[in-house]
């Protein structure tokens, strides 16, 4: 959590292709309602917005009665349109510093269970790139913004991030998502319990080897789970995604402590069966990238071999942002 600003803007894409803009303003409460909503010409929508925001706040651990948040929508949405709900929730979180995001956020999603943090779906059929799309194939619940598994869902999925570095302006953090469901329920066709549908055969074999090794080291997780692995950007080269993959798998299986923000990890290994984390390439570039991208609550995990060569001030810089860094020799506790 960092210093919240006094105004935040979040947009949502209407079905006609235009933008709906939600502006959130924070001011001292002074005995007024905690949330106030204004929608020109549609008091019903404003009422629903207040309800949505209040319900979504139940998923936050920290309650603050000192501020009032005023949310206003620039124009009335079409009848029955509900995709603005996610944008309203995010605007409310951004203005209080609970959720941080770089530039303009565009979000579409609706839910009947905001109090559980679940996002049921969206009306927008094919969201353009860059839109936060709620629903099972995008953002299934609010905790997924930080990669955490949904504590109420029957299928557990977790994300971890890793720096993707090629020297171009495409550099950034990529994510890997591991979803697990109990094998007993998945049926009998257990030819391959770990699948990664977007990837080529070589990479799939590599992922199976990595997860197999790490689960062997863990002592559990073999023969228990049907696993699906997804990448945000399936085309990449190098092995440094492996550590992030292993961490996402451990989080999804409920065997790792939980970070408050995202887990950002880089590192590969030839000995996952022994739990060892070994160095990856491009130390300086990746550290610079991580220093740029990490936010409050994020957990940065780097190989132990890098510890001596870390750039000066990286630790302090991360701590100032509210993130923490650890250099890891072996996965698991301490």
């Amino acid at each position, binding site marked *: *959590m960092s210093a919240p600003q006094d105004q935040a803007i979040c947009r949502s894409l209407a079905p006609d292709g235009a933008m709906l803009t939600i502006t959130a303003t924070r001011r001292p409460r002074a*005995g*007024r*309602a905690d949330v106030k909503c204004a929608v020109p010409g549609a008091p019903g929508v404003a009422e629903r917005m207040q309800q949505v925001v209040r319900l979504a706040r139940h998923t936050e*651990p*920290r*309650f*603050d*009665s*000192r501020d009032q948040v005023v949310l206003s929508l620039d124009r009335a949405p079409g009848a029955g349109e509900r995709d603005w709900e996610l944008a309203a929730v995010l605007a409310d979180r951004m203005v209080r510093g609970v959720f941080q995001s770089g530039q303009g956020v565009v979000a579409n999603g609706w839910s009947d269970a905001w109090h559980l943090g679940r996002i049921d779906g969206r009306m927008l059929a094919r969201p353009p790139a860059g839109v936060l799309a709620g629903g099972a194939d995008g953002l299934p619940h609010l*905790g997924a913004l930080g990669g*955490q*598994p949904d*504590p*109420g*869902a*029957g*299928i*557990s999925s977790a994300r971890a991030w890793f720096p993707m570095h090629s020297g171009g302006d495409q550099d950034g953090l990529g994510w890997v998502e591991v979803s*697990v*469901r*109990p*094998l*007993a*329920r998945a049926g009998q066709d257990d030819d391959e319990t770990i699948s990664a549908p977007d990837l080529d055969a070589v990479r799939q074999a590599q992922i199976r080897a990595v997860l197999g090794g790490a689960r062997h080291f863990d*002592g*559990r997780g073999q023969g*228990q*789970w049907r696993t699906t692995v997804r990448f945000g950007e399936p085309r990449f080269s190098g092995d440094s995604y492996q550590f992030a993959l292993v*961490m996402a798998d*451990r*989080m999804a*299986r*409920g*065997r*790792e*402590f*939980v*970070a*408050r923000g995202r*887990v950002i990890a880089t590192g590969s290994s030839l000995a996952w069966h022994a739990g060892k984390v070994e160095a990856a390439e491009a130390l300086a570039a990746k550290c610079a990238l991580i220093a740029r991208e990490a936010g409050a*609550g994020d*957990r940065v*995990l780097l190989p132990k071999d890098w510890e001596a060569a870390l750039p000066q001030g990286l630790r302090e810089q991360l701590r100032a942002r509210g993130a*923490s860094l*650890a250099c*890891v020799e072996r*996965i*698991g*506790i*301490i």
Partner: protein
Amino acid sequence: MLGSLFKDTLKDALRGTLRGSVMGSMMGPLRQPEFDAARLGVTAIALPAPNGLTIPAPCAAVLVDRGGRSRRLAAGARIAALEGETAWCVHPGPYACDLVPFAGAPEIGLRVHVAIDASDPRATHQRFDLFLASEAGGAVELDGFAELAQNALQRELAQGNLALPPCTTLEEWNAFRSGFNQLMYTRFGVTVDDCVPVDLGAARDYAATLDARLAAQADAIDLAAAPDAALPASAPQLAFVPACEDARALRRLFLELPCLMCAVRMAVLPADQERFRQHQDLLRRLDLVSLSVGTMPALELAAPGQPLAPQEQLRRARHSRRAAAALDEAWALLARLKIAGEGPLDCLFDEADRIVANLESESQARRQTHAPEAEEAGA
């Protein structure tokens, strides 16, 4: 006029607290379960003790009167409760329990060994005795206590006040341990002897949990498809009984706020004038909350002789419960204040401001006879 009103409401509040304690121990003297010393130190931490009992060897007795004042008797003495006193027999332990620090990660836990110390001669009140007086209705079972401790731990971790991140390093673990030890001592009055991470995979299989959850979801869909099917007898839901919840929460606030204030006063030694003012202001506001709790109107009355609608009673009880949750946060903050140096004090005072503001707004809302929303719709 005002004076008598005051006295009446105070009496009400006291009656509320009294009722809480009676409800807690539920059974009258006739149906009181046999005092079973064998359970003490194994599955139970404290058991209500009958009058005249000779306190068995490692245990001690805690006697609490109606106003929450407590005294202790050492082993070997006979319990002779005065009028209005309730007696517990407390085994000092040690006790072992497994806590799950994150609800989302059920297979990794902490094995914690706690003990209840002999009374601290420097303290004006013993925290564990206060815990008995305000929260233990009857017996304190080890399982129930572990659940309370786990909730306190999970909330501190979720708020980021304690940190237990993935691949915790040794320094981070030590910082966590000191924070956790202080939290347990400040919140419950127990000392943590040992705390190690454990693999709970064998006992709490996550795959089996998810399997059951998926089965329940499938059942729910089947039920929705065939609405006239019989409802499943399973899925026990904890009912929210406004009168009980409200009495319990108000009792806690009534007994604990004065002790909390006392502890907050001791915990900070103001370095300069500015800090002194901040500290004084905080104590003054806590005092007003405490006064507000002490004079809280009865749950079921809108005005003398005028019953309040059940819906509004439910709303009032919810506010009481949220005020009690803020009280929990205040104890956790006190633990952080105790081990903090001069450095993070600004941040901690801001947290204190937030928590006291929450206490103020919840206790204010508890006093209202209707939701304040309606009248300020146009504001």
